[in-house]
Every structure is written in C-alpha cells, then in structure tokens.
C-alpha cells in the first residue's frame, strides 16, 4: 500500500510542467541578454498603444488609435509621410525605426487605472512592447507611467493634463507632450483679463480627483494674481451626471464667473446644465455672467452642442492653427492633410499628441541608435524640436514635460460643422507658461533614474 499515487510517468509530466513554469519568466524577458526589457529581435519592433477602447472616453481613444496607426504607417514609409516631412529632426528615414519595421499591439485602458495597468503589463510581457503610449486620463497616465518605470520600458503619455503626471508622480521613463493644468491657467489668465476685466468674482465647480484639484489650484492662483476673487469652490463627485443642484446656487452667490474644472462627460453635463439655468443670459454685479472651461476637448465638446458658444478654454493644439496663425505651427496642415485624407475628418488634439509622441519616440531611438530606454531618455531630455504642429518645443530634462505654446479657444457662435466648434483666440507663447521644475504645484516627487529593466 502506498500513500502516494505518483507514477513514474506522472513524475516526468510534473517535472516537465514545473520546468516550463520556471523557465517562463526567462522567456518573458527573453531579451535580458541585450541589457534591457523587450529588446527588439529580428527585423521588427513592437509598440504598445494603450487607449480607452470601451467606456465613456472610447471615442477619444478611437481617435488616438487612428493617429497611432497613421504614425506607424508613416514611420514604415507608407502614406504621404505626414509630419515626418515637417519635423525638424531628420533622423527618421521612413524605413521603420533603426531599419526595423514598426508593428503595434493595442490595449484597452477602459479609463480605469487597474485595467490600464493590466493591459500595459500584458503588452509588455506577452507582446514584447518596447514602448507604451496613449491614454485619456491622468489617473491612468500616472498608473501606467509607474508600471513602465518598474518594467523598464518607455512611457510616452497620451492625453493627460494633471500637474502630477510630470509633477509629484513624474518618472524617468515617462514623457509628456500634452500640456498641463498650470499651463492652461497661465495661458488663460491674461486672455480672461482682456475679455472680462480684472474685477471678477469666481465660483468654481471641480471634479473631485487628481486632475480636478490641480486644475482648480492652478486657475485660482493665476486668476487671483490678476485681481479676480474666488468666492467659492465646490467639489463635485466624478460620477455625478446631473449638476443642477451644484449650478442652481451659483447665480445668487454674488459670483459673475463660473469656472468648470470638469472634463469629458462631466464637462458636457455641467456646461449644458449651466446654460440651461440661463447663466449666460444674466447680469451680475453689473457685468455679463461668464463661464470658463479651462481644458477644452473639441471632440467631447460636441456632446454639449451649441452650449459651448462663447465659452473660453484652452487646448494643446487645434487643427486650424497653421491656417489661422501661420507657419510657426508648421506640421499642422501636413498632419491634418494625411489624417483627413485617410479618415475623412480633422484630427482631435488627442490624436495630434499621440501622433507626435510616436514620432518623438522613434526619432529619439534613431538619434540614440538604440532602443535601450536609458539611451532614449538621454536623447529626449532637453531635446528641442519644431515642425510637429505646436511651434518650437522643448522636452525639458528636469521633469520630462514639453514646453510649447498653449492655444486659447472660444466656442463658436455659429459652427459650420461638428469639427469646427471652437475658434482660436490666441496662442500664448511657451515662455509665458513655463515654470520652474521645483514649482510648488509640481513639487513632491523625484524623477529618479531611468530603468532599462531586464
């Protein structure tokens, strides 16, 4: 009688399975001999595009994905080349990256931090992605950036506007092309002063999460510096859909400006509610009541329809920039042309930032002559470039934030179509929105050292 039913054949099977299991981690980091995570093998290189493909930001994610596809096509020498033709750096030759054909995998962030981390992890471990890009939320960007730092791959952030992404949560392997809350506020303040004067009382509604807080802090500091007074700031739940109970008391509060620190669905609903309550038709303190939306998303503003008419806000980029403000914004028309020809409509600012990020990564690899994240970090740090649609731009070494002009826009009174909802008021020059690396609103975190992984 035996206490074990282990047979010789069973033992061999178990050993084989255990051996395979133990070998798996080595397989997953097969490139460990190259000294960094997922060093491209053969004649291809894989990029991972992590965008919201489901959930409320799915349309923005779809536009990001279109831009990524276009960028890959251009990198591989297809299409009309888009902004490769206008980009100031000429290291890319349309033969992939360092001669390796670019292929990509996609993940669905669902605009949830845990789901976004899981999909990024899967693209890094299973698909061998050497760079992760995309996203439409700061919570997601911070989470995925942290993961990429640990895994030893580069993170080229998509749409993320919280100060924290390149502030207290900055990481050496992470880079942000998109602007941030501080820049929005710094760009908006002088325009608001010109439009509405220097004696205004502000009531603000703020989405109760990281981006909302930094946006509110930034806009309050900037507007108070020019003489405006903030009389109340109300935090609203991120999950709120009807803002009527927050909007209703505004008119009787003595405020004559309402600042909506909301994005996406929150912005569409709060702005729609504010217009329903007739705020824009009222006079308070002898002045016309005004509404400000610090971060505009033209794509999402479609949901608010005509309600955005006359509302001032800021954008990272607009497809009409080069036509309206001239050749400083060269690259814009080239991108609009290739995107518009391929998809039939103009690109959103989310698409532009994702396209630019992909090109910037590829160019950094080409200049560095290596996919090693530490070499890429070195190539991107302090990199000055032009021709990607935003005018002269600096990727600052101290925090991996891009510094470029910020576009101040206003909702059009009579838009011609759903892609033409805003008009450009002005572009605030980069030097007016630049801040120190150790600015209090960005303090708290350390960039640390680049991590090549493996």
């Amino acid at each position: 009688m035996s206490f074990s039913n282990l047979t010789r054949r069973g033992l061999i099977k178990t050993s084989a399975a255990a051996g395979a299991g133990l070998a798996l981690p080595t397989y997953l980091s097969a490139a460990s001999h190259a000294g960094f995570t997922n060093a491209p093998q053969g004649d291809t290189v894989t990029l991972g595009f992590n965008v919201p493909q489901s959930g409320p930001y799915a349309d923005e994610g779809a536009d990001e994905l279109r831009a990524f596809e276009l960028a890959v096509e251009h990198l591989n020498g297809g299409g009309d080349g888009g902004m490769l033709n206008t980009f100031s750096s000429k290291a890319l030759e349309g033969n992939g990256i360092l001669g390796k054909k670019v292929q990509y995998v996609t993940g669905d962030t669902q605009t949830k931090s845990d789901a976004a981390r899981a999909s990024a992890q899967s693209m890094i471990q299973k698909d061998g992605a050497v760079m992760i890009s995309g996203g439409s939320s700061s919570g997601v960007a911070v989470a995925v950036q942290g993961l990429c730092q640990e895994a030893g791959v580069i993170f080229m952030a998509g749409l993320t506007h919280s100060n924290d992404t390149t502030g207290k949560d900055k990481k050496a392997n992470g880079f942000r092309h998109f602007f941030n809350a501080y820049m929005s506020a710094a760009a908006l303040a002088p325009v608001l002063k010109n439009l509405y004067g220097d004696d205004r009382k502000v009531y603000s509604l703020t989405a109760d999460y990281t981006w909302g807080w930094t946006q509110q802090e930034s806009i309050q500091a900037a507007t108070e510096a020019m003489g405006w007074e903030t009389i109340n700031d109300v935090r609203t739940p991120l999950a709120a859909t009807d803002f009527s109970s927050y909007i209703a008391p505004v008119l009787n509060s003595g405020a004559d400006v309402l600042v909506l620190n909301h994005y996406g669905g929150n912005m569409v609903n709060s702005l729609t509610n504010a217009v329903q309550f007739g705020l824009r038709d009222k006079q308070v303190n002898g002045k016309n009541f005004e509404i400000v939306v610090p971060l505009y998303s033209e794509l999402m503003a479609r949901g608010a329809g005509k309600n955005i008419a006359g509302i001032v806000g800021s954008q990272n980029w607009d497809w009409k920039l080069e036509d309206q403000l001239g050749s400083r914004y060269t690259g814009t028309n080239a991108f609009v042309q290739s995107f518009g020809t391929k998809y039939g409509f103009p690109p959103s600012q989310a698409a532009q930032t994702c396209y630019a990020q992909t090109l910037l990564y590829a160019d950094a690899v080409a200049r560095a002559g290596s996919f090693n994240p530490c070499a890429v970090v070195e190539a991107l740090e302090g990199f000055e470039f032009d021709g990607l649609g935003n005018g002269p731009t600096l990727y600052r070494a101290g925090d991996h934030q891009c510094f470029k002009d910020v576009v101040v826009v206003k909702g059009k009174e009579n838009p011609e179509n759903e892609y033409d909802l805003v008009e450009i008021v002005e572009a605030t020059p980069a030097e007016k929105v630049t801040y120190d690396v150790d600015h209090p609103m960005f303090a708290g975190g350390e960039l640390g050292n680049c991590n090549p992984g493996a």
Partner: protein
Amino acid sequence: MDAILLQLLNGLDKGSAYALIALGLTLIFGTLGVVNFAHGAIFMIGAFCAVTLSKIFSLSHLASEPSGTDFLGKPKYEDILYIKEWFGESAGAWMLDWSVPLSILFAIPVMIAIGFIMERGLIKHFYKRPHADQILVTFGLAIVLQEVIKYFYGANPIPTAAPEAFRGSFDFGVLLGFDPNAIIYPYWRLIYFAFSALIIGGVFAFLQFTTFGMVVRAGMADRETVGLLGINIDKRFTIMFGIAAAVAGLAGVMYAPINSPNYHMGMDFLVLSFVVVVVGGMGSLPGAVLAGFLLGILESFASMNEVKNILPGIDQIIIYVVAIIILLTRPRGLMGRKGVMEE
C-alpha cells in the same frame, strides 16, 4: 430661505426622474415578480428614441453645386434636409426644433414593442428561476443593449436640444417677492416635472379606474386566485411590462434635453432607482413615487454648500445613508407590504 426653496424645486425635478424609473421597476416587480436590471437600459433607449427622431429629421442629401471648400481644400457640398424639401422651410425647421416632444409619439410604440420583445423573448423564461438568475440575465441584457447603442451612436454624449421656446429659465424668485435671480429654474426642467406628474397620475388612474387595472391589481395581490377565476393574468402582465417600458422610455425621451444622452446613462440611474424601490418598499407603487421624490430632495439638499461644509462628501453618500436608516427602522421600506420578497 431662497436657497432652500431652490433646492426643493431641484429635488422635485431630480425626484421626478427617479420616481418615473422606479415606478416602472415596481410595476414589473409587482406584476411579474422579476427584478429587472435592464430597466435603466430601457430609460436610455427612450432617450435615444429622441436622438433617433432628431437624426431622422436631420437626414439630408448633398447639394448638386459646391458651396465652398472643406478643410482639405476639396469642394464642399451643402447638406439639404429632406424634411425641409418635403414640408417646406418653416415646417421643416419647426419639426427639427420640436423633435424631442414629437419623439413622445415615436417612442410609445417603439418602447412598448421593445418591452414585449424583452418579456416574451427572454424574461418570461426566467419567471420560475431564483431572483439571482433574473438579476444576472437582466443585467447582462442591459450591458448588451448599451453596447448595441454604443456601436451605432458612439460613446460620446449626443446633444439633443429642447424646443427654442423652452430654452432659458424662469425667475420664480420675483414671483415670490425675492430679488431677481434668487430662484431661477430652467423651463424644460419644470416641464419635465409636470410631465412626470402627468405620467404618474396616468398610471395610477389606469390601475385604479379601469377594469384592466383592477385585474392587474388583483393579480398583484393574489395571482393564483385570479388565475383560478379563469383570467389569463400572464397576458395582462405582459402588457404591463410593455407599459412599464413605455413609462421608462418616456422618462428617457424627456430627459434627453436635460443631459445629452449617452450609452451609459441607464446604468447611472439604475442603482439609484433600485435604492428608490427598496426605500419605497418592494412592490409598492406609491412607495416608489414617494421615495423617488424624497431621495431627489434629500440629494439636492445634501449638495448645498452649507451642508457640505459641515459634512464633507455627504452629497455622494446621502442616498445610501438614507437607505440604511430606512431599512434598519422599517425593513420593508416606507410603504412595503408584508410577504413581498419574503417567501
């Protein structure tokens, strides 16, 4: 004082949406004994009936001659609306402007049909199954329905405006002797409140004063006995499912101008509506309406700054706090009957 009146008004308005959805939920639960998690999706489909009609009215063809160039520099052709061609410029413009109220006529048959199909096609197979199975299948159905809507309409909210005549707001404060701008309220939200009151009144009158309603009420009280009397109660309950779907659908249609419809709006209301039903008492129609308004008003008061300053974050949890208190003190809810969901 004016702030309190304003939030009271606001609460009544919020409450009317909750009450309408909860009323439909209770109708289905009371008659068929099914916990219908797809009810929020029905509300959402109602709102998309308004979107659809406005899209139908916006159908157009391109002009034969170009009227300029598009963003790529290619010739641009203007859209010409069919309804303006068929009904004339002014009538076409009027129809487009009034598309939301007109959607009511469009939504009633569509929603009743959807209710029928849902009940006959899927839900009737789950009558004798445990409540957990019903919840799972209807929740799954809700997800399917919202993904279908997302596939056709996208994830972004779609603006659906109220008629021009009802945009803007009404100054109640002046009427009551307050300063101007003290109590203003949007016209369309006032209409929503009146509309809800009308529908709720209509449903109660239907159940109270018609023979059909009497049979349904008898069936709700004792299904078996009504069946023994030779009445086909199942058929009537199916019709009630259709009516409940229509009530939620109409709530959705009229809600479209308040917040731009998106595929997820049903889920946003679903959890709240269940809390409303539980607080009101499972199976009690007056309870659902009462709890809808009560929770709407409490939610509005909880979002007042004066209250939030004392209890930060109370606006996010007030509904659940109230639910806990009610269930602890009155386990059957405000107007719940003995024996419902207790077997």
